[in-house]
């Protein structure tokens, strides 16, 4: 998957786990937490979705590296 595809896929997953987030308003460089009040439940759901949809198992110690769209893409590149 190239960077663009990956970003699109991640965005889909974010709106899937947080249906009350409007995908068109996501700013790639800003943490989900600061933009959408993402909490530990959202992060866990996101990790589960990444595992289910992309086959990537993210250890809890790496959760900080999923904090924003940009960081996610960075982290997932080479892992998918």
């Amino acid at each position, binding site marked *: 998957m190239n960077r663009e595809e990956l970003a699109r896929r991640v965005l889909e997953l974010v709106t899937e786990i947080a*249906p009350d987030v409007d995908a068109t308003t996501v700013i790639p460089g800003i943490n989900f937490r600061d933009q959408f009040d993402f909490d530990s439940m959202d992060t*866990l759901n996101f990790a589960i979705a990444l595992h289910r949809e992309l086959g990537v198992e993210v250890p809890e110690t790496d959760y900080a590296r999923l904090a924003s769209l940009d960081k996610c893409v960075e982290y997932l590149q080479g892992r998918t």
Partner: protein
Amino acid sequence: MPSEFRLPALGADMDEGTILEWHVAPGARVKRGDVVAVVETDKGAIDVEIFMDGVVREIVVTPGTKIPVGTVLALLDVEGEPAAAVPPPSPTPVGDISAPSPTTVGEGGGEGPSGDRLKISPAARRRARELGADVSALKGTGPGGAITVEDVEKARAIPQPSPQPSSTGAGEGDKMREAIAAAMSRSKREIPHYYLSTTVDVTPTTDWLTAHNAAAPVTQRLLFAALLIKSIALACRELKGFSGFHRDGGFEESPAVHVGVAVALRGGGLVAPAIMDTADKPLVTLMDDFRALVTRARAGRLRASELSAPTIILTSLGEASVDAVFPIIQPPQVAIVGAGAVVARPWVVDGQVVPRQVLTLSLGADHRVTDGRLGAQFLARIAAKLADPGSL
């Protein structure tokens, strides 16, 4: 003589709703626990389950109609032993939780029949109501065919016959705020609250959790809140007077413990749906249910029974980085537990000051039922359960 299916009570702060959709038509066979209608409330769209088996004879209330709790929605021909199995419909709306039996939820399972539910985001639903658009006529272009705000706005260009726009000009957030204010005012007026708090060392718990989550597959990881929810449920089993309802001038301990979890909604406001039979669930099952519940709360897809069932509530403001919360009871309940953030603090262990992970637990409870002394024991009991996560 057909049986009446009435709009059940939806919790302390909701006394009316607007029928959005029916999932059944006259002639349809239904069984206890089936989601038969979707009702728009101040707290989002709610799936309403039926609490009897039978065949739908007549739909009385059409979509788009705003009605108070207790209104007859449909008539059913009930099979077998009729009225006996049906809980009495509630004539008193606010706070009454007589309607659907909480046990039906467990049977229905976590996600429920969401498959045949109209897929629409809460934002799109809100926009549709503002515009008076009929969402059932729309085709969704969002993920999984979900109807988006854009779909609603596009469709608006085409004039459609629509149910009368129910909105009165007040935004959804305002209405939820009004509902919360009304319930909390009632609580403070009627309930002689007392408050307690205690700060406890939860390092063994966080260590256990870190180890568990490092070893478990991602789908079986736990959140700290899940351990706390289970601890509260077990403490409720051991000490009476905190889990149940104060109604008709007296307190009734609930035979089952259903811990409600306060969930903040991103658009503002909060709901507190229940994890059913909390004390009986293994942690991983409890966590699955907790996760599904939060997701559905935020998607505006809760079930009526989940909103009316909580026998006690946990409000966990730890993520908002406060040390402690002094929670207000949601009537007809008689207790609410608050949890602040788990933070590293200097702590005295065996005469030495060491860094430990600590948590401030608090309790708001009802003096009509318990006193501070029992409340203190209750908090201590929760802390003791939490300190031994392996036994949860």
